[in-house]
Structures are given as C-alpha cells and as structure tokens.
C-alpha cells in the first residue's frame, strides 16, 4: 500500500480520491492544534524561561517566525517540498517552482481523502514551527530584523528541501531510501534544533554568559507553554496519520505514554542528582518525550513508546545539563539540547522499535524484508543528510541575513537594557 505517496502527490491522483468528512474534520482540527503549538505553546514555553527584560522579544521572535514562516511556505515552500520536479535528479531534493503561490492548485482538489488546501495549511504549520524552535538558541542578543530575515530565507533554503527529501514522494532521495519519520523528528525537530545551535555559535554568547545569573521570568509560563505544546502535539502526531483512523489512535496513545515517561525521567534525574524535583525539569522532560516519540509515533508499540520517552529524556538531560557546560556554547533555551538530541535519538531508535507490521510501516528495508539493521542505516543516512543540509544551509542563511540587516547582533546598550524596551518599546509587566 503506497498510501503515503498517494497523499503526498495529489496532482497525479484523480479517480480514487474521494472526500471523507471524518478525515477532513480531523485534519482541520489537527491543523488548528499544531498552530496552537507555536504562537501559544512554544512562545509561552520560551517566554517564561527568558530573563524578564527579554520576554516580549522572545515571544515576538516565536510569533514572528510563525507568521513569516507560514507565508514563505505558501509563496515557495510548499512548491519546493511537495511539488514534483520533472528533472529526476533535481526531484531528489527539490520539488520545483510549479506551485509558487499555490499556482495550479484548486479549492476542489483532494489529497487522499481531504482537501489539498487543508494538507497545505497543515504542512505550513510544521514549516513555521521548525524555525520557531531555533529561536530559543539565540534569544536576548539577536536583532529582530535579522531574525525575521533568517526565518524567511530558512523556510526556502533549509526547510523546504529537507521536507521534500523525506516526505516528497517517489523520486525524493530519503523517501525512496525508505527513511521512517512519522511526524517530523528529523524534518522539524532535529532540523530546528541544529539550526538553533548553528545560529547560537555564529551570533555569539549573551553578555556575561555563563558567569552572571540569568534567571527565568516565570516557570509558570514555561510549564503552561509545555502543556499547550503537549495539547497541540495530538495534531502534530495524530494528524500525521492523515486521517481519522486507527494509526492516528496509535500515535495519540504512544505520544501520551512517551511524554509522561519523559517527564518522570527528567524529574527523577534531578531528584537524584540535585535533590530537587523542579517544575522546569518536569516541563523539559515533557518536551523531550514529545520530541523523541515524534518520528516513531505511528510505528511503535506500547513498550517502544516507554523506551523512546525515557531514553529521549536522559539524552536531552545530558545535553542540557552536561554537554552545554562542557562545550561552552550558549544555546540559551536549549533548542539544540532538547529538540536536536531527542529528535536524533527518536529517529535512530525508530529502526529498532518500529513494529514489524506491514499495515503501519512505510516502504523501506524493514517493511520489505524485516531488515532492522538495513533500516537503521537508512535512518543514519537520513539524519546525516538532514544534519549536513541544515548545517550548511543555516550558515548560508545567517550570513545573508546578517549582511542584509548590517550585522546580526544588537549593540551592547540594547542587550544591557533588554530587548523588550530597546527594540519594541514595551514592558512585560506594568504596575500601577
């Protein structure tokens, strides 16, 4: 059953595509759920962790990433990601420009069992959150103009080709190789997390890091943001079944198990190591669990989802608490530590934890011959290719954006006063 490519290539399928109202309803709800993750969930999650003088700037970076990222998706991203290039060599990485501004797609078009316009909107929310995730690495010192420029370029140069390689249908390189990425562990989380690290290194550390105390504005906002992200993730993972069906049901359950397991794991690690179970730790474990299950949500068993969440949380904890200190980069809100590392773990572990069930699996070595090692090598290939593309693409994007906006970093005075006041002329809390 080449169920997935059928959905991905709406242009070439006519006769058998019939609109199903249940699927359509679920995909529209899922779209709204994934939308909620960015301007509410991620924005609160990050905003709460930022110093009080930079909260509104952080929130604006996330919301700004969504609105710009989404429109870039409509202008060119969708065409590059899900278009079909007539040149079969280019089709490996690049869907072409046939659908710029959604040219050639009509409101009556059906993608599988629901309108193509719903598919486009749903996928647009993924494109937008991927770069919004990266903002967490560079808060408190990047110029807002540079950030917005980065978002616009990144959607076209980095995200769209990666989405094409993995999800772009027949002829797309990693799709043909048989990489398993159910809802975007590599495409969204590894990609966004690594982009964050690259930008953090290029723009430099915040003044005073790590010597002065940089306390979060309010852990309450962060915890609430994590809850909203979790809520929205039912659309992210459940919606990636592309229908109101049993696979969506599996994804919803595995997502909840892995997330709870991730949260408990982080809490216990802190309790043992620091003698304190912190709420920020529980919220961080929630995100690590969510990210780890994302590439595997519709493929794994109940036991597999426990393993994904627990180990995903351990890996992210290591990245945030130890690796960051050791390597001395200022990944301010740990976009890399959590999204890249837990996403990487999930992508690789999927090869071993996916159930050998032909009805669930996508085409690849595991489905073809039960070859888990072969599947693992495909997963490795996919994380290496996605990683390299992100790395090089993000460096290019950074330097173009930095050139266009005459320097990526705010001046010392702005950084000292705080970006809320200096850039936006707003304050997070006014008394009296």
């Amino acid at each position, binding site marked *: 059953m080449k169920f997935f490519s059928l959905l991905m290539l709406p242009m070439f399928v006519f006769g058998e595509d019939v609109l199903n109202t249940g699927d359509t309803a679920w995909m529209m709800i899922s779209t709204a759920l994934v939308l909620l993750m960015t301007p509410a969930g991620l924005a609160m999650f990050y905003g709460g962790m930022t110093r009080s003088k930079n909260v509104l700037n952080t929130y604006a970076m996330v919301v700004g990433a969504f609105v710009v990222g989404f429109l870039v998706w409509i202008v060119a991203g969708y065409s590059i990601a899900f278009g079909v290039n007539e040149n079969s060599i280019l089709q490996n990485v690049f869907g072409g420009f046939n659908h710029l501004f959604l040219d050639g797609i009509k409101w009556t078009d059906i993608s599988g069992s629901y309108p193509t316009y719903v598919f486009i909107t749903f996928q647009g929310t993924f494109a937008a959150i991927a770069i919004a995730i990266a903002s967490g690495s560079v808060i408190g010192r990047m110029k807002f103009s540079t950030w917005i420029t980065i978002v616009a370029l990144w959607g076209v140069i980095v995200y769209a080709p990666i989405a094409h390689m993995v999800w772009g249908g027949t002829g797309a390189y990693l799709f043909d190789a048989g990489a398993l990425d159910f809802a975007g562990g590599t495409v969204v989380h590894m990609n966004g997390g690594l982009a964050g690290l690259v930008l953090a290194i290029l723009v430099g550390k915040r003044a005073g890091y790590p010597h002065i*105390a940089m306390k979060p504005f309010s852990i309450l906002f962060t915890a609430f943001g994590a809850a909203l992200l979790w809520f929205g993730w039912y659309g992210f993972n459940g919606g990636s079944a592309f229908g109101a069906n049993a696979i969506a049901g599996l994804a919803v359950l595995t997502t909840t198990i892995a997330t709870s397991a991730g949260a408990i794991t982080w809490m216990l690690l802190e309790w043992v190591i*620091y003698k304190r179970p*912190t709420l920020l730790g529980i919220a961080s474990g929630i995100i690590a669990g969510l990210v780890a299950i994302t590439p595997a949500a519709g493929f794994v068993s109940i036991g597999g989802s426990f393993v994904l969440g627990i180990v995903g949380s351990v890996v992210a904890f290591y990245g945030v608490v130890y690796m960051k200190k050791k390597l001395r980069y200022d990944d301010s809100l740990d976009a890399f530590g959590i999204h890249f590392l837990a996403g990487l773990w999930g992508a690789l572990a999927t090869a071993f934890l996916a159930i050998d069930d032909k009805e669930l699996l996508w085409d690849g070595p595991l489905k073809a011959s039960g070859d888990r090692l072969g599947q693992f090598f495909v997963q490795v290939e996919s994380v290496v290719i996605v990683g390299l593309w992100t790395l090089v693409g993000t460096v290019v994007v950074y330097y173009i954006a930095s050139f266009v906006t005459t320097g990526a970093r705010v001046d010392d005075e702005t950084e000292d006063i705080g970006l809320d006041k200096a850039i936006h002329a707003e304050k997070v809390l006014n008394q009296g």
Partner: protein
Amino acid sequence: MKKIEAIIKPHKLESVKDALIKANIEGMTVSEVKGYGRQQGQSELYRGAEYKVEFVSKIKIEIVVSNNQFAQKAIDAIKTHAKSGKIGDGKIFVYDIAKTIRIRTDEEDEDAL
C-alpha cells in the same frame, strides 16, 4: 521611649501582627527588604544551573513604644511568633528614642504615641 526594629521571615508577618495587636501595641511600620546574614543567601536551580541568590526577601517591622514594659511585650510577641527554629528567622534590635512628635496635633513624646 523605645524603638523595636525586627527583621523577620515574610510568612511570619500575619501572626506577629496579630500578637502585637493582642499586646495592645497600636501601630507598626512594615517594609519589604532584602538582605543576608550568616545564612549567606540561598540558591535556585534551573536546568542544572545553580544560581546563588545573595539577597533573601525579608520583612522589616518598626514599632515605637512608650516604656520598657511595652517594649518587653513587643519583643516577646515577635520572638514567639516569628520563630521557626530554622536558619534565617531574623533579628530584633532595640533603640532609645530621643523625641516623638505627632504632626497633626504637635503633641510630643508619650502623648504622641
């Protein structure tokens, strides 16, 4: 006339205030203050990063009473009700007051209290 100044834990303020009212002490001034003593602050933990909080939030109470008897009552009330037995319960300072004037009526010293 004596002035009693006490630095206490913020959550002890309510019970200290109630005890002072019971002891017929009619007025007090309260301020939110920060500082440290032998405790040398506390620390906070965020994702494994431990930050030393140098100054801990405290409440400062100021009371002026007319004689030693009232001063002792106030000290007893504060001592009993601000005590948790743990580090950081605070301190009480007692001063002599040279003069008191009520601004509205020009009354002075004991009459002004």
